[in-house]
């Protein structure tokens, strides 16, 4: 059944949704949206270096994303520059160097648009296995990490006083973000990946009473948007990545915004 490119696209998209949405809840709760974006932007450099050095591209992206994530977390305690300014600088340094590095990849071997905005209709059988295998591993790790990560997200010092290993837990979490970026890149592209993490969380928020409900609803919202976006893309012959983003946006404005407005009086 994986012979059909549409089926492969749907499967890859659903895998990416199931992976990115629960992780994205933590990104939103911990106010790390721009952090995730910066890590994602570093992915292009990984792709280009992968090409130039002849290593697996997913591996290349994992390496640059992990390096960027560790760098960013190491810089969190510096006070010289506001953190969001620093993120802005590094995000665009990463993107620019990725684009320049891509220039050095000869000919048409590197489909730049595909990496920037995703090329879900071109995912291979191997990509589908990568995404589902990776999603299973990352979600299993997130499940193990869930309690301490949630505790330190609510109140870091209280969690530390209660024995949570703060640094270790945080580092594990940002590594999961880096791996997620590498896995979801094929589906939605490095420029749009953050939307697959934060939109579903924002859609789910007004309908959830606990963090777990929010994560589950976010995964559901992401799956619906991926299916809807792909459907639109095939029907109207539009780019898949941006179509998924607009489907997520439609969910946000149709479902979440009215609910938030009602709750907020």
């Amino acid at each position, binding site marked *: 059944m994986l012979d059909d490119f549409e089926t492969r696209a749907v499967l890859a998209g659903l895998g990416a949704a199931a992976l990115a949405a629960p992780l994205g809840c933590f990104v939103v709760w911990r106010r790390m949206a721009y952090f995730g974006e910066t890590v994602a932007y570093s992915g292009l450099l990984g792709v280009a270096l992968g090409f130039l050095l002849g290593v697996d591209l997913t591996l290349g992206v994992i390496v640059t994303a992990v390096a960027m994530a560790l760098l960013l977390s190491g810089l969190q305690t510096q006070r010289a520059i506001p953190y969001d300014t620093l993120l802005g600088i590094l995000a665009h340094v990463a993107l620019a160097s990725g684009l320049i590095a891509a220039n050095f990849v000869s000919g048409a071997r590197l489909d730049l648009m595909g990496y920037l905005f995703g090329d879900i209709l071109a995912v291979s059988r191997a990509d589908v296995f990568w995404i589902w295998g990776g999603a299973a591993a990352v979600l299993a790790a997130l499940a193990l990490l869930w309690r301490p990560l949630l505790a330190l997200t609510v109140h870091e010092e209280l969690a530390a006083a209660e024995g949570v290993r703060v640094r270790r837990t945080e580092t594990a979490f940002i590594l999961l973000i880096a791996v997620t970026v590498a896995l979801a890149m094929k589906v939605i592209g490095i420029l749009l990946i953050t939307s697959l993490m934060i939109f579903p969380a924002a859609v789910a928020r007004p309908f959830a009473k606990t*963090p777990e409900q929010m994560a589950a609803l976010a995964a559901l919202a992401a799956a619906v948007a991926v299916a809807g976006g792909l459907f639109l893309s095939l029907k109207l012959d539009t780019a898949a990545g941006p179509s998924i983003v607009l489907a997520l946006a439609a969910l946000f404005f149709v479902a979440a915004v009215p609910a938030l407005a009602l709750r907020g009086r």
Partner: protein
Amino acid sequence: MRRVREEKSGHMLTRAADGAHDRTVSAPGSALVAAEHVSISFRGKPVLENVGVAVHEGEIVTLIGPNGAGKTTLARVLLGLVAPTSGRVLRRAGLTVGYVPQRFPVERIMPLSVRRFMHLNAAISKERALECLAETGAASLADAQMTDLSGGEFQRVLLARALAREPDLLVLDEPARAVDFAGAAQLYDLIASIRARRRCGVLLISHDLHVVLGASDRVVCLNRHICCEGVPQHVAAHPEYMRLFGPEAAASLGIYGHRHDHRHTLSGDICGGGGGKG
């Protein structure tokens, strides 16, 4: 032999450290936690100088002192959240701590019911969670969202959550900060009754002098170093205390048994006889 954990004195940590306390040494007496000759400085600026303090089973120790006196820092040192620059911290092995931090910002973007908050970082049964909420008078809040609680309700929920861990030691940093005067008096009564029932040690940080002293067994007056300490009557009469808080503060405790007909100290609270116990 009873064993406690020791903090290695070392370089200052700016954030909660992993495994900040691993070594164990024998503990003096029945102390749950003790700081010995603790000094700590941030960016070369001394915050605590040669401070020693201990909390024993079943006693309420109150830290008082002006803003910037290092009260919260001392609590964080005792909790193992920062390592002292010099000196050491002893902690009884296997000590369970219930902590109510001074500041507790809640993010609206995370849905969190009181019920869910109770077992955020430990497997607490539904029944125990409700029992502890009832113990602090917060049983009716179980289904509320944390973001919808008032200041007093929030403190009661934090306290209930700390109790659900069955702590040997409660560390309460300004628990009455967001509560009005009557609420504060109730809260301190509640803390006293918890201590009486559970026999846990309590380290209380406060600047609500008039209310808090009555509820304390021992008071430590801190202003980077320890100015004076002892039973509340002793501290209230101590010249250092008078110097820090002014003679009216001591008088407003009602410890001497005389009353002023008017007060113009500290927060301008109307004490209405509430401070007149003792």
